[in-house]
């Protein structure tokens, strides 16, 4: 009973107490420091004590007083901050009365030295956590190689005596921790004397319980100063790499093998990588992904083009230099053995970017090819049935370096050099069977040509860019030196056999060619802003090219006597001076450029039979003058639409091969002559495109079209004649023959049918081109049409299954005016299906099937290539470090090389055997482990 009464009383009292505590309160107070100085205009905040969330805030008035009217009556963390005082935090309990007068709230002034040096000079954040004061050590620059002690000497509020003892706020620092852990026992100088200053990110100073109280667990109230050195987190430091070995065979037991390895190490500023491969499965180089990882941040270069002029004004672009790149570029014919290895080093600290690399490549190819060709006259034609056996070995050593030095934000220098040494040896044996119709064989020309070539090539350039104080005004200068000397030995054998009457002619020549090409370029560019939106550019380009060629041809069957009619020594020089200007308007997505350049082109050539012999023709001295306009307009519209238009006019000089007076005779039935009277080609080009994408619906659409016109295109006139005891001889000679028109259009679109699960894209293309040349003095106009259509459906029903269905058709037709009965129509169709399926946690099935059809009804050319590949792979190990893959290539054993095309006055189709069905088992190791996931298509920038 007593208990009940007691409980009742308690309830009443507590209700009373509760009702006494108002639901809202007014909090007020006055802020002063220890010396009774008023803190006017201090920021006063009420925070939630549990998570520091800001609830309310105000400012003190001139008297240092603050008031929070009518706030919820609860627990608060009151926080006061002022630029001259250390931030203060105090707990405010719920008030029993409506007005909660805190009275004088005392705050401490901030140590002026700390404040001045840390906050104002070093611009370092100062962090105050209770007793701990922390600042960012990286902003106090210590010279490289400094110890932490050197760093600490620079820090405000810390004293370091001669023997390295530390003091702060007048007290000795008893302990130094590194990342919270003791370092070198109890001696605080152990860490400070030994640790590299550059490893330290933060220095934290705080009060710590004394050793005594830590041991006893009884707080004796004695606090000691301690310091913690927080180390830098090098977030971009690491390595990756993988190695794969694979072996297998085809049914005949021919071994197939492949190996690949790459290793990369990197930190924030540098990347070092190694790569190597060897195989006999027609991978002549590395794939794009491996190349990208190998080159790292130097895969793309910016600002690298030193040939200034008519820039469309894009400030930043990346260019990919495919010259000498070790990428896979197998042409589809025959069998290859491939070896390659390289290393790459990148350094980039934003001020200096350096890239150096070395690559060695060795490719050996051999194939047998069967070619069919019909060559048209005005009223008849002849045929070739050729068999070719080819083999070669190509070796390249490439050393490349590129340096970009940003001297300051207004000056940048780029210097780059690329050196390549190549060795090529090849042999080609060919039987050329000539006939006037499918059955009547005229003659068979057998040729056996070998080549050995050594050459080196240097390309180098330097660019300097300067920005003036005036925004938009800039100047750039560039220079380039390129050299490409080489020596070549050719052994050219031919045996021309006739069947009616039986007769044979044998020719055996040895040719030695020495070449030395040299090029020097220089360019200047000056940009002047005329207003915020108008710019003027003036540029000048100088380009001089010197070529020396000594081609000595000997008759091996006639005691190696020189053949004067085929030997030539020539030196020639091209010099181009171009001066141009353009005006640009750039504002709010509209960019217009109008420009004009005057070009003066000089060509000099001297031709003799050998180096010290008299000239065979008077020296060629030609000069051409041209004025070329340029227009470029682009506009961005709302809704991610963009339209571009460009017009240009160009003068292209005839190459010296076209001009040389001595013919090139690779075999007795085919002769190419030069033409000294050639004029440059003048080409006008128009292009336009339209782009649209809708990020919300994940779809895009684009159209591109261009048209070019050349009134004096250079093409080869052909004279086809029957020469007794030689056969059908083709003599080609270039002329500024005809008008040439080219049109091409492309359209593409991609859109989801079901977002993220089912997408469809389309590519459509159309090409039309005409050109003309004389065949036996009759003008032949060739019209060529090409239609292209491609569509693909990507289906991703789950994250574990990706299916792609695709179809493609390419239709080409050509019309020859000299022989209207020989209009050509050839077709090529491909249907494809790709499946990627993760059928267990670490198991994957991948397969693709491609069915290709080649058709040309006129020649009854009908080839079908169904190619099916399939593989399964299994990841092994806790972190998927290992992968085993079993793959079957070309399961239907159908793969071969096929090509057909029509040009000028002939049609040809070629075929060659290549790697068909084989099976392979591969083992891979990845130091970081493989991802247990189907790889999605990735964009190039990610």
């Amino acid at each position: 009973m007593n208990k009940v009464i007691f409980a009742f009383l308690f309830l009443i009292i507590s209700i009373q107490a509760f009702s006494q505590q108002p639901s809202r309160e007014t909090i007020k107070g006055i802020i002063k420091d220890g010396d009774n100085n008023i803190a006017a205009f201090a920021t006063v905040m009420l925070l939630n004590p549990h998570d520091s969330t800001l609830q309310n805030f105000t400012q003190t008035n001139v008297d240092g007083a603050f008031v929070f009217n009518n706030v919820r009556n609860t627990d608060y963390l009151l926080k006061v901050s002022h630029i001259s005082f250390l931030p203060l935090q105090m707990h405010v309990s719920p008030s029993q009365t409506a007005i909660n007068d805190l009275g004088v709230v005392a705050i401490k002034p901030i140590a002026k030295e700390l404040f001045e040096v840390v906050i104002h000079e070093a611009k370092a954040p100062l962090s105050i956590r209770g007793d701990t004061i922390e600042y960012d050590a990286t902003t106090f620059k210590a010279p490289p190689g400094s110890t932490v002690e050197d760093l600490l000497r620079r820090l405000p509020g810390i004293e370091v005596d001669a023997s390295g003892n530390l003091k702060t706020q007048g007290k000795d620092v008893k302990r130094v921790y590194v990342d919270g852990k003791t370092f070198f026992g109890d001696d605080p100088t152990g860490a400070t004397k030994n640790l590299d200053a550059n490893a330290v990110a933060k220095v934290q100073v705080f009060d710590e319980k004394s050793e005594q109280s830590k041991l006893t667990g009884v707080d004796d109230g004695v606090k000691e100063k301690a310091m913690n050195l927080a180390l830098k987190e090098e977030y971009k430091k690491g390595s990756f790499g993988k190695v794969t070995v694979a072996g297998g065979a085809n049914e005949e037991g021919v071994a197939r093998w492949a190996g690949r390895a790459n290793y990369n190490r990197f930190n924030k500023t540098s990347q070092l990588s190694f790569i190597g491969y060897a195989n006999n499965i027609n991978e002549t180089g590395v794939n794009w992904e491996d190349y990208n990882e190998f080159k790292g941040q130097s895969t793309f270069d910016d600002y690298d083009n030193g040939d200034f002029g008519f820039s469309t004004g894009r400030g930043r672009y990346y260019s990919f230099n495919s010259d000498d790149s070790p990428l896979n570029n197998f042409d589809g014919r025959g069998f290859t053995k491939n070896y390659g290895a390289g290393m790459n080093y990148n350094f980039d600290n934003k001020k200096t970017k350096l890239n150096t690399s070395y690559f060695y490549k060795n490719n050996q190819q051999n194939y047998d090819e069967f070619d069919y060709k019909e060559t048209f006259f005005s009223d008849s034609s002849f045929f070739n049935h050729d068999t070719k056996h080819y083999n070669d070995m190509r070796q390249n050593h490439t050393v490349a370096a590129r340096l970009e030095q940003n001297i300051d934000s207004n000056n940048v220098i780029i210097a780059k050099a690329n050196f390549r040494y190549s060795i090529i040896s090849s042999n080609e044996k060919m039987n050329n069977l000539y006939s006037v119709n499918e059955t009547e064989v005229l003659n068979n020309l057998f040729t056996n040509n070998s080549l050995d070539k050594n050459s080196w090539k240097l390309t180098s350039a330097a660019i300097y860019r300067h920005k003036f104080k005036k925004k938009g005004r800039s100047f750039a200068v560039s220079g380039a030196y390129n050299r490409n000397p080489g020596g070549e030995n050719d052994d050219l054998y031919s045996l021309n056999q006739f069947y009616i009457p039986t007769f044979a002619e044998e020719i055996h020549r040895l040719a030695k060619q020495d070449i030395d090409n040299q090029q020097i370029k220089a360019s200047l560019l000056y940009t002047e802003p005329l207003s915020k939106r108008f710019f003027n550019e003036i540029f000048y380009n100088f380009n001089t090219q010197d070529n020396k060629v000594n081609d000595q041809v000997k008759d091996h069957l006639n005691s190696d006597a020189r053949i004067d009619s085929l030997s030539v020594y020539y030196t020639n020089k091209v010099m181009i001076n171009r001066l141009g200007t353009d005006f640009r308007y750039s504002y709010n997505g509209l960019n217009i450029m109008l420009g004009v350049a005057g070009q003066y082109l000089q060509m000099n050539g001297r031709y003799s039979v050998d180096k010290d012999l008299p000239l065979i023709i008077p020296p060629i001295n030609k000069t051409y003058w041209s004025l070329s306009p340029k227009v470029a307009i682009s506009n961005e519209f709302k809704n991610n639409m963009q339209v571009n238009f460009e017009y240009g006019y160009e003068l292209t000089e005839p190459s010296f091969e076209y001009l040389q007076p001595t013919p090139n005779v690779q075999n007795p039935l085919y002769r190419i002559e030069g033409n000294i009277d050639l004029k440059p080609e003048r080409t006008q080009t128009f292009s336009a495109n339209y782009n649209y994408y809708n990020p919300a619906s994940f779809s895009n659409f684009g159209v591109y079209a261009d048209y070019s016109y050349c009134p004096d295109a250079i093409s080869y006139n052909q004279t086809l004649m029957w020469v007794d005891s030689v056969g059908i001889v083709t003599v080609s000679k270039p002329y500024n023959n005809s008008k040439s028109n080219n049109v091409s259009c492309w359209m593409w679109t991609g859109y989801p049918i079901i977002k993220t699960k089912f997408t469809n894209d389309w590519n459509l293309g159309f090409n039309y081109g005409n050109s003309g040349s004389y065949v036996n003095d009759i003008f032949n106009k060739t019209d060529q049409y090409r239609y292209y259509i491609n569509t693909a459906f990507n289906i991703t029903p789950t994250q574990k299954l990706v299916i792609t269905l695709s179809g493609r058709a390419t239709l080409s037709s050509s019309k020859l005016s000299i022989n209207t009965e020989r209009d050509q129509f050839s077709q090529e169709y491909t249907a494809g299906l790709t499946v990627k399926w993760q059928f267990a946690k670490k198991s994957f099935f991948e397969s693709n099937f491609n069915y290709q059809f080649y058709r040309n009804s006129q020649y009854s050319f009908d080839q079908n290539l169904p190619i099916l590949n399939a593989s399964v792979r299994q990841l092994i190990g806790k972190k998927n470090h290992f992968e085993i893959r079993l793959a079957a290539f070309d399961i239907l054993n159908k793969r071969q090389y096929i090509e057909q095309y029509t040009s000028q006055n002939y049609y040809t189709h070629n075929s060659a055997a290549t790697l068909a069905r084989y099976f392979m088992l591969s083992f891979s190791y990845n130091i970081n482990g493989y991802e247990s996931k189907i790889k999605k298509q990735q964009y190039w920038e990610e």
Partner: protein
Amino acid sequence: MKRKYIWILLFILATGLFSAKSFAQQVQGSVKYLTTYDWVKMINSCSYLSKDRKDKTAYLWGNRSEWKVYNNLYFSSQRSKYENSEEKADPDDDEGYAGRKETFYLTRSYENKTYFDAIEMLGKVYLVSDSLKTPDWKILNDLKEVAGHVCMNASLTDTLLNEKIIAWFALDIPVQAGPDRFFGLPGLILEVSINNGAKTMTAEKIEMKELTKEFDLPKKLKGKQVNGAAYAAVIKKFLDEKRKAEEFPWGINY
């Protein structure tokens, strides 16, 4: 003697007027912010992209992943307006191509507790108006200087965009305004860092001046009128789709 009194009277008047004026004068002015985007860090802060892809992006593009623009903020105690600046921030863009200016105006009225934004996003202009809800800022103890002002640290988590926001607000400019969509601190926000530097906005120049027409919006602002919830729903839908496609959600302007 008379002259002495006149001088004193004049002095009192002058100081009185001056102090009256200085009290009457409200805090207003403009801030030029340098906005830096680091798309390697942006990709790194995307929760659903694979580690492999993030590492590779950092490895391939780590040292050239930034682009910079300027933004302007006009503020007073009552309101603010934030917009894109015409000035180019990236020195490489000085003489270059001029991209289209997207519609981007964020205005806030701290008096009426409302906002009106005109934002071009995913190919559409949205005119968003709603009442202002002050975010739950957490106040931390760090101090640092930004553009000559001592600032205090505050933090915020945006659950819609999955962003961790660190702001630095000035202790001596008692205005609630800030860059981008940020506001609601005891002082002008002079720096904001989102997701560890994926996007940062740092005040470069602060001018205390009387504002006249700076708060005005362009006369013809056309777009889809929505409230805050509807606008957030558009973003959420897009983010969900991009998450399913495992692609980075380029194109979000919040």
